[in-house]
C-alpha cells in the first residue's frame, strides 16, 4: 500500500520536470497538438501523462480537485507525497483531474475575474484516446486549423465565449497530452 505512494516520481526532478514542461508548454501554445509526456509512474487509474503533469505543475500552493474514480486513496497518497498539494472541492481548485463525465458540470469551477483572468482553473481530462480528428479548432497558436477529438462541443464553445475568463483544458491518455486553452475557437456542430 505504502509503496505505491512513494514510488513513481521523477528520477531526476529538475531535468525530468524541465523536459515535461516543454511538452506541456508546446501543447498549450498549439491547441490540438498531441505530444508525448512521460517521466512519472503514477498509480492507477491516473494516466502517466496526467501524473507527469501533476508532478510538473502541482505544489503546496495549488489546490487540487480529484473527480470520480480518481478520488481514491492511492492517487491521493501519491499526489500528497510527491507534490504536497492540498485537496479541495471544485469551487476552490486551481487544478482538477478526472474523466469528462466526472468533471461536469463546468459551472462550478473558478473562471477568474475580469481583473485577474489568470485565476481560472485548469482541468485535466482523462481520455480513452487522443486523435487529431473530430472538432475543428482555430485561434492563437493555430496556423490555419487544427482538429482534436474533444469529448464535447457546446461546453467548450460556451467556455470560449467567456474569454478572457474561463477554464483551460489538458487532455491526457496514457502517455499523450493535448490542450485547449480558453482562447481557442471551437467549430459549431
Amino acid at each position, binding site marked *: 500500500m505504502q509503496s505505491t505512494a512513494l514510488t513513481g516520481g521523477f528520477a531526476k526532478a529538475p531535468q525530468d520536470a*524541465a523536459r515535461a514542461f516543454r511538452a*506541456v508548454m508546446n501543447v*498549450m501554445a498549439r491547441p490540438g497538438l498531441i505530444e508525448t509526456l512521460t517521466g512519472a509512474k503514477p498509480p492507477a487509474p491516473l494516466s502517466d501523462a496526467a501524473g507527469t503533469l501533476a508532478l510538473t505543475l502541482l*505544489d503546496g500552493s495549488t489546490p487540487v480537485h480529484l473527480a470520480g474514480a480518481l478520488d481514491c486513496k492511492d492517487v491521493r497518497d501519491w499526489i500528497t507525497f510527491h507534490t504536497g498539494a492540498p485537496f479541495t472541492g471544485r469551487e476552490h481548485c486551481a487544478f482538477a483531474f478526472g474523466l469528462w463525465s466526472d468533471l461536469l458540470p463546468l459551472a462550478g469551477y473558478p473562471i477568474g475575474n475580469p481583473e485577474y483572468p489568470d485565476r481560472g482553473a485548469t482541468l485535466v481530462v482523462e481520455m480513452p484516446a487522443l486523435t487529431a480528428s473530430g472538432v475543428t479548432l482555430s485561434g492563437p*497558436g493555430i*496556423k490555419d486549423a487544427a482538429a482534436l477529438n474533444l469529448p464535447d462541443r457546446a461546453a467548450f464553445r460556451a467556455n470560449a465565449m467567456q474569454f478572457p475568463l474561463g477554464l483551460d483544458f489538458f487532455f491526457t491518455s496514457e502517455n499523450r497530452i493535448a490542450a485547449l486553452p480558453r482562447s481557442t475557437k471551437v467549430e459549431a456542430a
Partner: protein
Amino acid sequence: MTQDYNFAYLDEQTKRMIRRAILKGLAVPGYQVPFASREMPMPYGWGTGGVQVSASILTPEDTMKVIDQGADDTTNAVSIRKFFEKTAGVATSEETSKADVIQTRHRIPEQDLREDQILVYQVPIPEPLRFLEPRETETRKMHALEEYGLMHVKLYEDISKNGAISTSYAYPVKVEGRYVMDPSPIPKFDNPKLEMAAVQLFGAGREQRIYALPPYTRVVSLDFEDYPFEPSKADHACDLCGSDTSYLDEVIMDDAGGRMFVCSDTDFCRSRRAAGHVGAQGVPFEEDAA
C-alpha cells in the same frame, strides 16, 4: 557542468510557479500574469525577468542564444549566456538557426524563427498604459474593461504635435483584438515580425509580470485609418554587409561627423558577409577577423 547549482539556477518550487504563469499567459495572450519574481544574481534592469523565464523553460538538450539589441557580443548578452552555461550546462550558439531558446533584449532576429524555437524577451515596463496612468489599480481596471481610449489619445497627440506617430520603439499592439500589449522596447520596425511561428514569452522581473504570444497570434500595431502604422528604419544600407532590409545601428566614427550604419543583428550581418556580401565600407569576410 558543475553540480553546485540546481539545474538552471532556480529552485523547483520557483520554476513551477513561473511555469504555471507561462501557461496562463499562453491561454490569455497579451494579458500580464503576475508572478513572484525572485532576486537574481544580477540587478533589475539586466534581464532578470527574461532570465527567470528562460531558466523555467530550458531543457538540458537545448542550445541557447542571447542577444542584446541584436548583438551577441555585448556585456548583457555575454554575461547571461555564461550564466546559463554555468548553471544549466546548456550549449550556446550565436547562430540564430542553431538556437532552440533565444533570449533577447529589444530586438527580434532578422531571420524568421521556426516553430520549434522559443523567443524570450526581457521587459522593463510591461504595462503599456503605465506612462499614461501610474496607478496599477486603474490600469488593471482599464484592461479588464478594455478601456484603451487613452492610448489612442496619446497616439493622436503625437500626430497633432509632430505630424506623425513619433513612437518609434515599444510601439503598442493589440493582441487577438482584446489586450493592448507592450512588445518590450523593440523598434517598431520589428512589430510586424511579432506574428511568427515561434512561441514568444515576455518576462518583467522588477515589475513581476509574465505574458506570452502563442505562434501565429494576431498582433496589430495601433494606428489610425488616415495615419497607418509604418515600420521604419534608417534609410541606408548596412556598410558592412550591404543589406538594405535589416534594422541598422548608427555608429559615430570620429569627431568630424563621420558615421557608418551597420546591422543591429550581428549574426545576420556575419552570415551575409560570410556568404560574400560586402557593404560600402566593408572588407571581404575572413573567419576570425575583426
